[in-house]
């Protein structure tokens, strides 16, 4: 008897296939771990199981019945509950009220029986062995306490399937062992638990079975017994490097960007030292949350740092704002293109000159002809597919939006480019074009710091690779000496 079965689920977002065929089953009273690299499709799979996304194809069966249309309401009714890294509670309501919202809701105008609510909350918290005041406000609770409230909610909703997505990411070791006790308790009660974590230790402690997701497909499901750690890592990455990544043979020149002991308590960075040379691509690998984006934002002046030095072309420079960084010839392509990259309401041409307005607007007046010429040059050079340079960027495809955002930095003739997930969410064709542009820029002497969650991209594009974990650089390797297994095991807790 299986609690939940997913068969050949597929899902695409704007032409990018996030799931290509995921199959998976969950038995009562087991902890089933889902593992995979960033972007392997774990979140998409969870979203489908909780009804947050509708799959394009495949079937989902819960307790022997095929679910035709999964939505959050149905998921709840079927006893599926999810607990995420960040608890999603109502901070201004009490613990009891938060839990009560998960209990069976009768009519809108029923009287609220406060006493019964509190007793129900107490009973649920007792089952979890937690000692929380049901009348206390949730925003006064610590992160792990909030997570316990989430679990109590799941119990209250009589969840038989509990999905835990990186539940320990913000917990201390002691809190983790408390959580594990609770997980064991749930398992003993016959609840099926889908457990997602980057921490292999946890998976080897808790899981009964492990399913590996890679590139949107479920590769294999194995009993944890008899599974070796290196074997699991190999399953997660094991894939041939494709030929689309242009290998470049450029002799790196002088150091253009150097960080010496950069630390920031607020951003969680400690003692980061690295250097990028002319014509070099330094790949920065690491898991989501390892401090990679924080590092990029610190270099670009978006985040302050407590100690350490940033040197540009061997000169220590204070960088306090993006304007400072731009003046020093640093460009930054942020991770979330839609939110932070190109300005979708503005034209292709206006976007391209935005970081370099002074060049096209001496004395504050935009020279429209010069701007159009400049933009047309980039459209051709980057092969941007757009009806004209006056077209709004929001009308272009993702890959072309990314190229426009990139063009903006080329316009400042940068000496350093910081690229955060430069090819995330763009289609394969645009991806290899962006790679080619990066290679060309390096050949022209730009030093590139590239953050990527995609190991083949890191291995294929970088001259050297720095691996981050917990806000530190935990290792640096030359490309020729690097193996995906080595990088992933440095990035993971092991």
């Amino acid at each position, binding site marked *: 008897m299986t609690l939940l079965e997913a068969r050949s689920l597929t899902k695409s977002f704007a032409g990018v296939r996030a799931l290509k065929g995921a199959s998976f089953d969950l038995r009562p009273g087991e902890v089933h771990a889902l593992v995979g690299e960033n972007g392997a499709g774990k979140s998409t799979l969870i979203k489908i199981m909780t009804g947050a996304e509708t799959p394009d194809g495949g079937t989902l069966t819960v307790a022997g019945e095929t679910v035709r249309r999964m939505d959050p309401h149905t998921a709840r009714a079927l006893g599926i509950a999810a607990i995420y890294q960040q608890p999603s509670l109502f901070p201004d309501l009490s613990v009891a009220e938060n839990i009560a919202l998960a209990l069976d809701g009768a009519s809108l105008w029923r009287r609220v029986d406060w006493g019964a609510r509190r007793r129900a909350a107490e009973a649920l918290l007792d089952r979890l062995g937690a000692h929380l005041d049901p009348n206390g406000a949730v925003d006064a609770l610590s992160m792990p306490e909030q997570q316990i409230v989430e679990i109590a909610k799941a119990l209250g909703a009589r969840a038989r399937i509990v999905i835990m997505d990186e539940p320990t990411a913000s917990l201390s070791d002691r809190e983790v062992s408390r959580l594990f006790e609770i997980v064991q308790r749930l398992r003993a009660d016959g609840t099926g638990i889908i457990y997602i974590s980057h921490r292999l230790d946890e998976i080897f402690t808790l899981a009964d079975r492990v399913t590996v997701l890679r590139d949107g497909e479920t590769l294999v499901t194995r009993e944890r017994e008899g599974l070796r750690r290196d074997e699991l890592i190999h399953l997660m990455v094991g894939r041939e490097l494709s030929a689309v990544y242009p290998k470049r043979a450029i002799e790196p020149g002088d150091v253009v960007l150097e960080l010496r002991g950069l630390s920031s308590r607020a951003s969680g960075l400690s003692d980061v030292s690295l250097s990028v040379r002319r014509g070099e691509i330094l790949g920065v690998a690491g898991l989501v949350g390892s401090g990679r984006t924080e590092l990029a934002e610190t270099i670009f002046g978006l985040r302050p740092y407590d100690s350490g030095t940033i040197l540009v072309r061997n000169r220590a420079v204070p960088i306090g704002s993006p304007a400072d960084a731009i003046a020093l010839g640093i460009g930054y392509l942020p991770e979330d293109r839609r939110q932070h990259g190109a300005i979708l*309401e503005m034209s292709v041409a206006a976007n391209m000159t935005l970081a370099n307005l002074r060049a096209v607007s001496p004395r504050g007046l935009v020279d429209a002809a010069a701007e159009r010429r400049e933009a047309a040059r980039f459209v051709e050079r980057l092969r941007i597919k757009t009806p004209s340079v006056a077209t709004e960027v929001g009308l272009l495809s993702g890959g072309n939006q990314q190229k426009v955002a990139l063009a903006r930095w080329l316009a400042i003739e940068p000496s350093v480019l910081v690229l955060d997930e430069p090819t995330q969410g763009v289609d394969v064709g645009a991806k290899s074009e962006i790679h080619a542009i990066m290679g060309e820029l390096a050949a022209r002497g730009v030093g590139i710091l590239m953050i990527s969650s995609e190991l083949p991209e890191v291995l294929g594009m970088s001259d050297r690779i720095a691996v981050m974990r917990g806000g530190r650089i935990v290792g640096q390797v030359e490309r020729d000496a690097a193996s995906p297994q080595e990088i992933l095991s440095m990035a993971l807790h092991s």
Partner: protein
Amino acid sequence: MNYRRELSVALAIVVLGVVLALARPAFFSAENLNDLFLANMAVLVCAVGATLVILVGEIDIAVGSTFAFCSVAAGVVATSGLPLPVAALTACVAGVVVGAVDGALVAFAGIPSIVVTLAAMIGVRDALRWATQGAWIENLPASFQWLGLTQGSYPMAMAALLLVLIVSATWLMSETAAGRAVYATGSNRRAATLVGLDPALVVFAVFAIAGLLAGLGALINAARFNQIPSNGGIGLEMKAIAAVVVGGTAISGGRGTMLGTVLGVVLLGAIGPALTFMGVSAYWERALHGAIILTAVAIDALRARRAVPTVTAARAAAVSA
């Protein structure tokens, strides 16, 4: 940029004009048009400021109170015997001060603009009521009226002033780096930061400019009368914002033109008197304003829902354009 909204509003104005020309030709008498213009010129000046504020994604509901404050300030200076340019300057400076304080609180202290300007709207008006004890400014010197011009030449001069204001505002928004900064700040503040702009400074400057324009509007309006009320400009902020919204500026910022705002002022300003001429009760004016705003916004919402942006669609649009 496409001018679809501007075209629809212009079309609505033309339709209204044709109906009036056929049914009530008297609407187009020089006298009536003159009255209409004088009654709406302050709205237009304030709406230019409101356009800027809304373009950066903020809102200013203190315009009416600022307007009253500036009118009184100009009047006090004028009656004290100081020369006209000093009175004019006082009105503008008073506007800049209110706008700059609001702007600083929004931009640098990070308080939501609706809250800041709500406080300013109430605070400024009540401070003014207390200071004047509700009394109007009377005994204005003759030189103050019509700003030293005559009743006949004043509307012409003001029309020229407004034309210069609108043309230069349009030009500044489309042709200068500063205009770019306003659009970029309004459409995506984070992205604007990332290209090295200073969105806080842009927001602050925009509020100060909107204050200046409220002062200018107050001045040219006050000069029409021989008394200055201490409670002028009530509801002016809503008239300005309504015109901006009808003119196609996105309330979330980043998109919109001065031309649209001008057309919005014309349409909303003409509709009330047109009703009167058609013999419909003027009580319908406000309801009709509401209906026009709702129609404009609903069309936007429907269009946004239907349009799935793709390269092919853009190409088709580019080809057909």
